[in-house]
């Protein structure tokens, strides 16, 4: 079919890119995230066969979270607004993590607190 690889392309894929047993490496897969608050966002369009245990290398989105408090270099596509929000939040968490004693953020917000708004 026109959307699929031609025999020679298939041969190249198989030789250069396909992850094989002999490589001793595992197929990388993106974890299926489940949002507590939102309902099941990502209905799997097709029954993805769950990689049998140990055969897949789950890509982690949190392993390097301490690196996320700075905008990392981009190439042709700049960081989006929501990405800057994310970086800001990671930066605040980092600051809070290093605070001893009571939290300066709380003190900063305290003057704006009006209990009548809360009840």
């Amino acid at each position, binding site marked *: 079919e026109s959307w*699929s690889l031609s025999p020679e392309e298939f041969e190249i894929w198989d030789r250069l890119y396909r992850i094989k047993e002999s490589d001793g490496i595992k197929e990388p897969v993106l974890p299926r995230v489940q949002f507590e608050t939102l309902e099941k966002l990502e209905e799997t369009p097709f029954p993805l066969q769950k990689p049998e245990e140990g055969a897949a290398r789950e890509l982690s989105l949190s392993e390097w979270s301490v690196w996320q408090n700075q905008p990392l270099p981009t190439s042709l596509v700049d960081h989006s607004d929501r990405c800057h929000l994310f970086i800001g939040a990671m930066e605040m968490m980092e600051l809070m993590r290093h605070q001893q004693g009571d939290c300066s953020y709380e003190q900063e917000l305290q003057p704006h607190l009006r209990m009548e708004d809360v009840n």
Partner: protein
Amino acid sequence: QRLKAAVHYTVGCLCQEVEEDKDVQFSKQSIAAISEITFRQ
């Protein structure tokens, strides 16, 4: 699976261009990872 292979093959070609451009080497696993991410996008 054939569709995944088609995406994987194209990702490999595009990575090869970046390799020449940036003078780096992509590991097989990193190309497969970019392909998996693209597929899920």
